[in-house]
């Protein structure tokens, strides 16, 4: 049969063939991906192409996914087309979707892309495409190929808009995008948990990472501790064995998840720009038992197989600073570690009982946190509380440990009458509100009927601790005692008493030494001359000429020693005159001194008392001569 095709249809078919030429390598129903370079430099752009061919509807929803965040991708540039082929008279229509993305290299590394597209409602994956980012300038030069340009043939390989500000063909094939192309972060194929992101992997293939939800807590406050196992999805999953659990000896430990292998879903997180799988393998509610810097030890396991071979992996050590809750507002009876949010309910049955009989008290404490494991009932005389039976219904839900704990007491009532059992009060600290609260369970009154026998409580013979003194009603408020030994004055007095003797005796000795020193100073030639002059002047005031002449002679002798360095007493008067002249004393002065000495000697040894007036004149003359000697010296 001959088929006639209108001319406009011929033109359309030819055009369609040209359009699908870029996807000519794709098999029917096939989805293929390719990049225009497998190695690019840092900061460069590269294009990745998807060609999806369908025999039915046009493929839709093209997706670009990667296990890496080292690229930023532009918005997809999609170009649908349709082709009709006639082979042996059989006409086949097919649709093709060509999509281009431009990727901007942001980090060094290797990324593998898988492209997806929906064909007739089914998501079909392409072949993986791997692109490596190398340092800028290190990438091999790219060939300027345009393998998919459907218009290449039409314009003989020449782009009529080349070099123009607006080049529709370059935008179509995406090879010469403007520099200000708006890029957006590459959307990974899986949702990432930002809380699990890390700057760098702590080991190849797989590693452990431990975190706690808080680093400051109070005694008894829940600290949620988690350990994640990170696995590189590009590697063959290794086996794990030789597991050593984290040590947390300073904490009360409660499990929040099932530790079995596959109980938790795999999450994904960015680790150093690459996507890793992260699986929660341990999650504990830890309740600190004491204050201080408490350490949660590391978890350790062995990684067997994979690229890294056999290696040990250790999680981080976590340190939690633990304090006591504040004193302010703390209710009486608060037990350290009673932290959470509690309510208490008690059920007492029966309310009427015979003396010696038993009643049941069921106390239920429920809430979240460190629910008390033991309760002290209010003891009173004639009421005997037996050890309770405890039933737990506590677990970790939504990461918070809580539930209820039931205490079943049997209480023997040994005293007749209406016995008020009081209440069971459980003070607690609520870390969320940072306040104290008290969970109260009133117990009420139990009527105990007498049975004719004396009260068991009356049998005091068996009661211990008889004869204790009476209690004190008020605070003693004793004033602080000042001890003698705390007073500095006491120690000063203690030391000063014996030392006062040392001070007095020493002072006396010191004064004596001072006196001697002064006397010695007074005995110097100069001071002696002054003394001799004073003595002579004093003698001049008296009427004894001999005494005055003797004083004059001593004065002159001392003056020659001091002024001329000549001791005239050791010389005759004539010799003295010569010695003085030799020492630089004027001859007239030397003669005068010799005459004075001679006159004094004569006057002193006269048989009569002598003339005081003459002696006084001699004194004046001697003083003048000493003055002359001073000029010489």
């Amino acid at each position, binding site marked *: 049969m001959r088929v006639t095709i209108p001319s406009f249809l011929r033109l359309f078919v030819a055009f369609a063939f040209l359009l699908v030429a870029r996807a000519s390598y794709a098999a029917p129903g096939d989805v293929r991906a390719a990049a225009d370079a497998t190695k690019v430099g840092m900061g460069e752009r590269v294009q990745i192409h998807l060609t999806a061919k369908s025999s039915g509807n046009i493929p839709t929803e093209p997706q670009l996914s990667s296990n890496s965040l080292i690229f930023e991708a532009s918005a997809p540039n999609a170009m649908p087309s349709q082709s009709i082929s006639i082979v042996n008279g059989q006409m086949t229509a097919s649709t093709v979707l060509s999509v281009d993305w431009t990727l901007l290299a942001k980090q060094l590394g290797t990324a593998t892309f898988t492209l997806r597209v929906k064909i007739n409602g089914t998501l079909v994956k392409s072949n993986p495409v791997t692109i490596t980012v190398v340092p800028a300038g290190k990438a091999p030069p790219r060939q300027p190929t345009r393998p998919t340009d459907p218009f290449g043939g039409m314009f003989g390989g020449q782009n009529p808009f080349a070099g123009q500000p607006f080049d529709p063909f370059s935008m179509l094939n995406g090879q010469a995008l403007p520099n200000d192309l708006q890029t957006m972060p590459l959307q990974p194929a899986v949702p990432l948990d930002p809380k699990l992101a890390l700057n760098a992997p702590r080991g190849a293939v797989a590693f452990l990472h431990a975190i706690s939800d808080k680093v400051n807590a109070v005694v008894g406050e829940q600290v949620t501790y988690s350990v994640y196992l990170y696995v590189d999805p590009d590697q063959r999953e290794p086996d794990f064995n030789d597991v050593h659990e984290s040590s947390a000896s300073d904490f009360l430990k409660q499990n929040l998840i099932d530790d079995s292998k596959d109980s938790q879903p795999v999450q994904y997180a960015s680790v150093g720009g690459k996507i890793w799988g992260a699986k929660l393998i341990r999650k504990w509610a830890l309740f600190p038992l*004491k204050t201080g810097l408490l350490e949660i030890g590391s978890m350790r396991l062995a990684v067997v197989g994979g690229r890294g071979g056999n290696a040990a992996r250790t999680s981080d050590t976590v340190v939690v600073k633990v304090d006591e809750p504040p*004193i*302010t*507002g*703390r*209710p*009486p*009876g*608060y037990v350290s570690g009673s932290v959470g949010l509690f309510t208490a309910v008690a059920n007492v049955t029966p309310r009427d009982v015979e003396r010696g009989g038993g009643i049941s008290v069921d106390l239920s404490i429920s809430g979240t946190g460190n629910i008390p494991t033991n309760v*002290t*009932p*209010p*003891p*009173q*005389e004639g*009421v*005997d*509380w037996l050890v309770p039976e405890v039933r737990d219904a506590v677990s970790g839900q939504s990461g918070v440990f809580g539930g209820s704990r039931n205490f079943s007491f049997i209480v023997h009532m040994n005293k007749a009458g209406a016995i008020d059992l*009081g209440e069971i*009060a459980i003070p607690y600290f609520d870390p969320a509100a940072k306040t*104290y609260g008290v969970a109260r369970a009133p117990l009420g009154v139990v009527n105990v009927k007498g049975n004719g026998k004396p009260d068991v409580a009356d049998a005091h013979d068996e*009661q*211990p*601790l*008889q*004869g*204790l*003194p009476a*209690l*004190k*009603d*008020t*605070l*003693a*408020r*004793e004033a*602080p*005692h*000042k*001890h*003698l*030994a*705390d007073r500095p004055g*006491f120690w000063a*007095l*203690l*030391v000063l*008493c*014996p030392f*006062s*003797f040392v001070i*007095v*005796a020493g002072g006396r000795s010191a004064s004596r030494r001072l006196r001697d020193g002064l006397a010695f100073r007074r005995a110097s030639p100069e001071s002696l001359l002054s003394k001799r002059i004073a003595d002579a002047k004093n003698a001049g005031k008296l009427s004894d000429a001999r005494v005055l002449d003797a004083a004059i002679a001593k004065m002159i002798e001392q003056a020659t020693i001091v002024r001329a360095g000549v001791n005239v007493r050791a010389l005759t008067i004539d010799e003295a005159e010569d010695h003085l002249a030799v020492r630089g004393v004027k001859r007239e002065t030397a003669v005068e001194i010799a005459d004075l000495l001679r006159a004094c000697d004569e006057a002193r040894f006269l048989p009569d008392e002598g003339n005081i007036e003459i002696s006084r004149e001699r004194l004046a003359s001697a003083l003048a001569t000493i003055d002359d000697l001073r000029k010489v010296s």
Partner: protein
Amino acid sequence: MISRRFAIAGFVLLATLSSARAFAQDDPSPDALAHDAVEALRAGHPADAIASFEALADRGVVDANMSFDRGLAYAQRVRVGGEQPGDLGLAAHGFEEARTLTSDSALKDESSNALGIIRAEVGRRRARAGSPIDLEQTPLLRDAVVALVPEDSWCEIALLASLISAAALFLRWLTQSRRAQVGAGVALAISAPLLLASGVCAVAARNARLHRVEGVVITASARPSDARGIAIPSADLLPEGARVRIVGANAGWSEVRWGALDTWVPASAVRPLEKPPSD
């Protein structure tokens, strides 16, 4: 306008006062706690009394009467059959603390009597269990000498000896009388060593008051251990209620001295005694 401002200011003041009052109600005063504790003890509710007395201690209230009453509260809980482990030790601690804190001789005597009753009960129980009943150890000689007289008495003796020494020295120096010199020499020979000894004892007593930490064993099973925390196999348990000297601490353990015995016990087994406040 002004009246509106006054109204706002008044409202703020009222709100502040009411919140302060609410806060004050949340955090009872020491007097209120003491009153509650005494009333609970009087009403025969020792557990409530203990809670209030311990809350009082947590607030840093150091008072001989309250320590005494706290001892009574623990003792009463034992008496009424609600005994918790450690109650006898805690009762002994209260009485020891009262005896340490007070300067009132009557309270000292009452505390000593009560302590005797508590220790008698502990001794009875230990005898029943076949354990040694010695609850008090002979102190070291130097501690015994220092404890012979109160600290202030040592100070007074030292001061007297100091005065006599000084007088004797002056007399011996100044007098010309032979008899007076001999008398001064004898006085000096006696007072000088006395001054030295009493001075040293005064210093030791002061150091003990300021720096010595003592406590009371408050568990029935304080097993002596070595410095590594390993129980000493042949050692007897430290008796509950025994007064010990705490000489060291390390990571949840306390090094205690009981008589001549130096050992380690868990820190929770010993409750330190408060010291009398001083200026």
